[in-house]
């Protein structure tokens, strides 16, 4: 008789989810799935609201990456208005995004994942958290806390508020940057650069200790998607779509994000509120693709800032072709923080950055707008339709975490097959199942919201649905 395990809730991730593992009649792992147990409903309840409110409304999707949602939304609204955003505003938006990447990646790496990396996957679960890290290596933990603070201070410096600011508006931003704020922001960067260099050294050194995890954490060929600039370099806010296959061959390049529907389909699964996007030319579910930090570093030809480019070269040298294991996301996050700090340094010294011309005004001139940016967790799509009065009639959001849904399930299956050898969930298995999800740093609250506390979060189920074990 087949069996099924359920793990719920999955810990140290943003949002609420559970994992089920189904065993076949021989007791071997037949399937493993992540279920997102929340429903947010933003696509539906935004209908009827003026498009000018969308930036603020969609920010409420998330407290970690509201900036990404506001930027994707503002870009969709820019298209509805049919205006060209002033150059200074485009740069300011990019810099705000840098602040978010720094704080979000620092949260993922230091607060959520470093307990596994520093203390070990098999360490005492009671201690395997940020407090354990503080005890074991206080300087490292303080680096993480400080780096996240710098990210938040950057956001506050530009937008006036750390969470859910209302600075980004359709057409640009609503306040120019003052010289005082510029100087204050510049003063934060040297410490950030020191911390990230130390952290990258730590991360690279610890990679050797995790060869087992690297080999099994979603280590399989798949397509990758990310935004790139005109030269194919890493882009976060303004860029074109590039897909590569599992061997690293570019299969679609410089695709205008407005044409995303030609390349991406969305499948709906009955056991999760999270949609399963797929690469259309390969169909469902073969069109599995990955997004996020490692995917971005896999698809791009390099990075426009020198220190981050050097790290990227080292990163890519770890394997031929794209780095397939999602475990590499940890290292990729730190490289992206370095890129953001360097970008801040470069653009804050641009004299145009203080320009008072930061907003283009307009009305709803076109019925449709699509805005695509790279969020910390991957490519984020906002697609809106409005009526003649500028009121929203329809919205479609493909949230970064959603893009990775198929890959997360396959990663779970890989880990479950490797580590689960009997009908009992051991701590080693439970933590690695959660850690593979954590490597993707999914934001389940972003992706789909009803907090559910019923039942446990990792379950092992028999093939007749009977719960054999849970954690």
């Amino acid at each position, binding site marked *: 008789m087949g069996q099924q395990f359920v793990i719920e809730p999955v810990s140290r991730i943003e949002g609420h989810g559970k994992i089920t593992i189904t065993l076949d009649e021989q007791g071997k792992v037949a399937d493993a799935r992540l279920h997102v147990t929340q429903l947010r409903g933003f696509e539906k309840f935004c209908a*009827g*609201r*003026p498009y*000018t*409110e969308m*930036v*603020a*409304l969609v920010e*409420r999707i998330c407290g970690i990456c509201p900036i990404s949602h506001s930027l994707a939304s503002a870009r969709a609204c820019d298209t509805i208005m049919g205006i060209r955003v002033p150059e200074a505003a485009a740069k300011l938006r990019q810099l705000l995004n840098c602040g978010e990447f720094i704080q979000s990646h620092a949260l993922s790496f230091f607060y959520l994942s470093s307990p596994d990396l520093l203390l070990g996957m098999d360490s005492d679960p009671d201690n395997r958290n940020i407090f354990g890290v503080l005890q074991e290596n206080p300087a490292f933990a303080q680096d993480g806390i400080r780096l996240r603070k710098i990210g938040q201070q950057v956001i506050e410096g530009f937008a006036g508020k750390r969470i*859910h600011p*209302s600075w980004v*508006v*359709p057409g640009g931003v*609503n306040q120019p940057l003052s010289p005082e704020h510029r100087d204050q922001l510049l003063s934060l960067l040297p410490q950030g650069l020191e911390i990230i260099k130390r952290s990258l050294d730590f991360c690279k050194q610890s990679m050797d200790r995790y060869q087992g995890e690297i080999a099994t954490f979603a280590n399989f060929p798949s397509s990758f998607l990310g935004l790139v600039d005109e030269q194919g370099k890493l882009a976060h806010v303004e860029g074109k779509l590039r897909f590569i296959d599992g061997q690293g061959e570019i299969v679609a390049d410089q695709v205008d994000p407005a044409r995303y529907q030609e390349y991406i389909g969305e499948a709906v699964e009955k056991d999760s509120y999270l949609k399963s996007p797929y690469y259309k030319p390969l169909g469902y579910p073969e069109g599995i693709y990955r997004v996020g930090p490692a995917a971005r570093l896999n698809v791009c030809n390099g990075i426009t800032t020198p220190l981050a480019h050097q790290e990227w070269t080292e990163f890519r040298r770890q394997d031929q072709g794209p780095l397939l294991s999602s475990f590499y996301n940890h290292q990729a996050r730190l490289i992206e923080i370095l890129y953001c700090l360097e970008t801040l340094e470069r653009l804050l010294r641009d004299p145009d950055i203080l320009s008072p011309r930061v907003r283009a*005004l*307009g*009305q709803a001139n076109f019925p449709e707008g699509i805005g695509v940016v790279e969020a910390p967790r991957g490519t984020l799509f906002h697609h809106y339709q409005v*009526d003649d*009065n*500028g*009121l929203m009639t329809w919205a479609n959001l493909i949230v970064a975490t959603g893009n990775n849904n198929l890959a997360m399930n396959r990663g779970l299956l890989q880990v479950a097959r490797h580590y689960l050898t009997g009908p009992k969930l051991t701590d080693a298995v439970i933590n690695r199942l959660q850690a593979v999800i954590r490597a993707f740093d999914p934001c389940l609250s972003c992706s789909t919201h009803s907090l559910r506390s019923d039942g446990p979060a990792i379950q092992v189920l028999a093939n007749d649905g009977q719960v054999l074990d849970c954690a």
Partner: protein
Amino acid sequence: MNHSPASRNSQENTPPPRILTLQIDGQDLSGRADETILEIARQNKIHIPTLCRLDGLSGHGGCRLCLVEISGQNRPVPACLTYPQEGMVISTASQRLQDYRRKILELLFSERNHVCAVCVSNGHCELQELAVELGLSHVRYEYLHPRLEVDGSHARFIRDPNRCVLCLRCVRVCAEVEGAHTWDVMGRGISSRVITDLNQAWGSSQSCTACGKCVQVCPTGALSEKGTSVAEMIKHRHFLPQLLAMRTNRRE
């Protein structure tokens, strides 16, 4: 300025208003018989919260936030519409009044949809300021959250009935100051809705002059300028006393 003999005569023939003595919150005061308790209180720096009241528009008494107690009467009365009598003893801030005011605000918040964080008037809203002033920490009534259709048909303005508190400032300013009377009220009680002309889209109104006075006097985000994002709708109301003063001068 033209001072016609007729107007001078009419001023000279009006008997001076009676001056009354009264007590507000323990202070012995005097005030004119033709001024409301609210006006006398304000002249003496006694603050009474208001919402539907706006200087320059007729009194409405709709929001009931300015309720005060008069010694000898069990029923509180709106200070904006009540005139003093000789020897009146008035209380403006008893525990009962403060409870009533908070309840009124709670009912207003629960009746429509006032999610400040995503509202164009966030940070510049009279309803929000009152909630802060009166210490409203939560709403005990169930939120009704009716889904009322936003009217974006006007070229310059947006009407969002979800944010409306039925203060009727828009109705009064349009009828009394602009003279267009585009706005009016439909329905009764909780079903009341502010409408344009014969309950038609604002953009199709034949009477609206697009002057924007209604938008500027609206205390919340119910009426706003098109294109404003969250927290960007700052209302400018200084036009109203200026406009009225200039008209008065012209008449004189």
